[in-house]
């Protein structure tokens, strides 16, 4: 392959970013793949299965992640933010802030000795509702790339002392000291002969010059107001991402579909679709939730065919290749589809079961169902960081907060600034297949003449 003659910045290391990176790098360009979390992989890395084929998500993504890692044209920059972008020489000058993870990437091989010794367990940000925890030093997830641990920023800033953390409150400044007789993780790593944990590590500024930029900044599960259908009031009401993580062998319950209240298997589960819609909520359809619910019910039945599954929905959004067949499969397995949304959810205080009251639209009567676990399909919304990133890139967002394509038909995948392209969840609710298609298309634009 010829030397990389030009370079491209890809913002976001999820499946769209990874796809764009591999295509661009294979084409012969140098790629900077920047992600603001400690690992690439994005949302897809945390899912269990993917519709409509029920492929295991990380199984198909991890080989791509390893390909990215070992590709000579790709430089992965994680835990980093794009802070400044200026046009220059027909391309862009970019300033990236790589926030310290306090672990030397070259030395760490994720052996986990530091994690063993860390005295503090906190709620995992993704899995808190279903009892997920992690230590203050941890690896993002087992298949993380780069495969390394990182120290929780709050701990490093000395803010976790009241939780039992061993550091913080030192009189001497870390960067002066470099000794740290105090931190148990540092000691554990030194005892291993590695000494990879360096609490005095500083953030690093990187200056890049690139021809084009591809925004693959992704999307996130929509949050809804506390108390809606009992969320965050009743322990056995969770959202659909929580359920995904329950099903996942790599999740906090090792793949057992159990209730947060008592850890028992749930024998009757209900899904409420379009849970994030409404006047105060999302005013658009998140596209994928119908298929996600079909998937989750099918997998639930695979775990245990006797589990009763109910899905409260409005319309089946089965738009893609194989989607309607997937929905039919769920029905054929005995999943009960009910048109309508429960108007009332209450909890039995002893069992923590949920009692749902709804109008059966076809029969025109009020009915009641008691379930052991309630899943809210809340939809997808823009990432919190979209606004900031849009300002830095000087590109427009649409009225829902997703990045705006300047002309979807005549100039697809182009942002409102020439040379900056969009793909994947950054443009709005999307499924994995479309993200890959868009990322491939965006990479063609990124390497083309303008």
């Amino acid at each position, binding site marked *: *392959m*010829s030397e990389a003659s030009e370079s491209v910045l890809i913002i976001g290391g999820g499946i769209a970013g990874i796809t764009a990176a591999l*295509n661009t790098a*294979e*084409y*012969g360009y140098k790629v900077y793949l920047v992600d603001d979390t400690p690992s690439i992989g994005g949302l897809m890395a945390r899912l*269990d299965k993917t519709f*409509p*084929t029920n*492929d*295991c998500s990380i*199984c*198909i993504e991890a*080989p791509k992640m390893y390909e990215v890692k*070992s590709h000579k044209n790709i430089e992965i920059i994680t835990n980093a933010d794009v802070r400044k972008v200026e046009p220059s020489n027909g391309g862009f000058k970019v300033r990236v802030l790589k926030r310290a993870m306090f672990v030397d990437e*070259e030395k760490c091989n994720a052996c986990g*000795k530091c994690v063993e010794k860390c005295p503090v367990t906190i709620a995992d940000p993704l899995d808190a509702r279903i009892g997920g925890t992690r230590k203050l030093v941890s690896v993002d997830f*087992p*298949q993380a790339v780069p*495969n390394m641990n990182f120290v929780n920023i709050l701990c490093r800033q000395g803010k976790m002392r009241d939780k039992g953390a061993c550091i913080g409150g030192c009189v001497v400044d870390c960067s002066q000291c470099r000794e740290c007789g105090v931190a148990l993780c540092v000691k554990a790593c030194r005892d291993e*002969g*590695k000494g990879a944990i360096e609490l005095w590590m500083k953030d690093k500024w990187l200056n890049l010059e690139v021809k084009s930029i591809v925004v693959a900044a992704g999307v996130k599960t929509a949050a809804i107001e506390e108390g809606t259908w009992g969320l965050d009031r009743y322990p056995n009401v969770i959202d659909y991402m929580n359920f995904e993580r329950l099903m996942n*062998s*790599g999740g906090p319950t090792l793949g057992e579909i159990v209730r947060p209240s008592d850890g028992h298997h749930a024998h009757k589960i209900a899904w409420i679709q379009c849970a994030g819609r409404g006047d105060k909520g999302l*005013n*658009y*359809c998140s596209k994928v939730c119908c298929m996600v619910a079909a998937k989750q019910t099918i997998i639930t039945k695979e775990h245990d065919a006797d589990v009763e599954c109910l899905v409260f929905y409005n*319309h*089946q*959004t*089965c738009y*893609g*290749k*194989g*989607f*309607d*067949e997937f929905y039919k499969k769920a029905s054929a397995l005995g999943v009960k589809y009910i*048109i309508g949304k429960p108007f009332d959810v209450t909890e039995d205080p002893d069992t923590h079961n949920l009692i749902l009251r709804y109008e059966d*639209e*076809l*029969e*025109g009567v009020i009915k009641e169902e008691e379930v052991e676990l309630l899943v809210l399909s809340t939809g997808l919304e823009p990432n919190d960081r979209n606004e900031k990133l849009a300002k830095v890139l000087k590109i427009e967002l649409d009225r829902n907060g997703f990045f705006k394509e300047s002309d*979807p*038909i*005549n100039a697809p*995948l182009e942002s409102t600034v020439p040379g900056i392209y969009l793909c994947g969840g950054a443009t*709005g609710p999307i499924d*994995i*297949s*479309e993200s*890959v*298609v*868009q990322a*491939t*298309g965006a*990479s*063609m*634009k990124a390497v*083309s*003449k303008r």
Partner: protein
Amino acid sequence: MTDETEIKNEATQSASEEEPRVGVFVCDCGSNIQGAVRCPDVTEFAATLPDVVHAEEGKWICSVDFLNRMKEAVKEHNVNRCVVACCTPRTHEKLFKATVAEAGMNPYQLEFVSTREQVSWVHKTDQNLATEKAKDLVKAGVAKARLLERGREIKLPVGQKCLVLGGGVAGMTAALAVADQGYEVFLVEREKQLGGLLGKVNYIAPEHVRAEDVVKTLTDAIAERSNINVYTGAKLESIAGYIGNYSVKVSSDQGEAEFHTDTIIVATGMREIDCDGQFMYGEDPDVITQLQLEEKLRSGGVQGKKNVVFIQCVNSRNEERGCCTIGCTASVKNARLIKQADPDTNVYVLYRDMITVKEEYVHLKEVMAEGVNFVRFAYESPPEVVKADGGLRVKVLDLQLGEEIELPADLLVLQTGYHGPEGVDDIKGQLKVSANADNFFQEQHIKLGPLDFAAAGIYLAGSARNPKPLKDVRDEGYGAAMRASIPMTAGFVEAEGIVAKIDLTDCIECGRCSKKCPYGAIKLVGDEGKTPEVIEALCKGCGLCAADCPKECIQVVHFTDEQLMAAVDALTEKDADKKIIAFVCHWCAHGAVDIAGVGRMDYPPNVRIIRVMCSARVAQRFVQHTLDRGAAGVLVAGCEFPTCHYITGNYECKDRLEKLRKKLDKKGYDTSKVWEVWLSAAMGPKWVATQKEMVKALGLEDKPI
């Protein structure tokens, strides 16, 4: 690996290349391996094995320091086969291969043994058992390494010509993107003019753009480019070859043409499914399809129609096929246009579900506010159309009302499903690609390779794949152009050296290998076109052909019968009756094994893993030989269905195991010793459960090993 290193490896190969000189490097991995396993013992043991000229222990053998030490040792002792005993090949194999290559050794002669994920992390309770298992695995590794041959990456040259089949939006988009890089494009279109389906469409929703404007922008751009050769009214007479080497014959309005092309993009579009006999279509001229309505709207509208009814999901969402994807958007769009043109028109849309993704919901609300009526019906009770009072009447069970209603209609629009156009069967045959029952082409993988075919060099875009909105078609045009441009820009495709090799001595030319290869990597050549030949650059090394060949003519580099059976023999030399020999695929199954390791899940140490790239590599003779050697059990572990890294491998393996059990039964083998497990890479717990199950079922609980 660069070309330079390649050449260097050939030149500086040690003088005694026939005689294996094995170097073994045993990793402590800090206290991750050393401790649970006595690494000094393993190293000492390794030094006693046949052909081992150097055995060394290291604290972290992946560290820069030790890698330098490894290179020194390779040079010092003229090592030409290397075994590393450490973590998992899935993450570190490339690193060690690159390292030994730098020292002048051929990287295909490196064998990876996993003593961490497969031993120290999962057998923590008995240091003796763990150490014995580590030694065993090293022994097998050395036995295989001694027989490893040299390999190299294979390159196939690819030029810069691209054939685009289909001149609709997808084809034109791809053609322009490819041509703008300076490459030559042959754009072949069946109809008399470019534009495809969009030539019939009025407006595009939800962007509200005129279809003819979109088409004109594209056709003008095509006309401006001298490097796009357009053939209209064309027929694809013949096409043969493979990437970098296709020969094409086309007849067209521009004459006969014969040319060579390097890549192909299939963008042949789709057409409506015929509605003859349904809802009085064909009997009454006022019953039309959505596309026929588009043509009417384009050329003046539907004046004089006062009662327009749309029926959704005709020929869709039934036993035969799924959703047509664009029907809801199309009907909402056209219902609105008709209502706006004359607000006194009664417009009804009869639907099952209303798909309004993203912001289309906003348009739906507006359309409802403008007075378009929406009536929901169930699949089980579709609308009925009758002729009465000199006109059409549509009867339907309104789900919301719970009663049947009757609507007059002087225009009835059927939103019908779609399928591939005529000529797809021909293309399928000529290109050796597959399509589904509706003649929509089969992409390599709906998530990982949506625009690729399994065979390299051919790509897919637009509604030839499945129906979709116009914006998505445009995205795919660019995407397919990128896929095709990668090999054309690089100038070659490159395959890893793990490829199939055919020895024609005993070949009976049954053609099975060529037929079964999911990548079209085995061509049948020769005077009678029956002799199999591997196009190495296209081979992915799954080993399906090698396992299926009735005459055992095919081997796979780095995974030959001899090498794999040498590992089996080494492992079954001692205490075979206590051991489970497991053939584990490199991808998901090995991923599950690794995750069990990462999760420190404890399980009985009876299993000895032999890695293969794909479970399809496991031939009947492997299982039989392993049983002959007295193994307590044989386990085949592959990817969970439907995923297989090599598309069909796990399915083939499962079929083969079924047949194999019957055959072995007849021969008097105890087939209760032959097990299989299908894992996703997250299924550490399932791997562990299988081990415990097997140990119990095979009566190994009292026989610690």
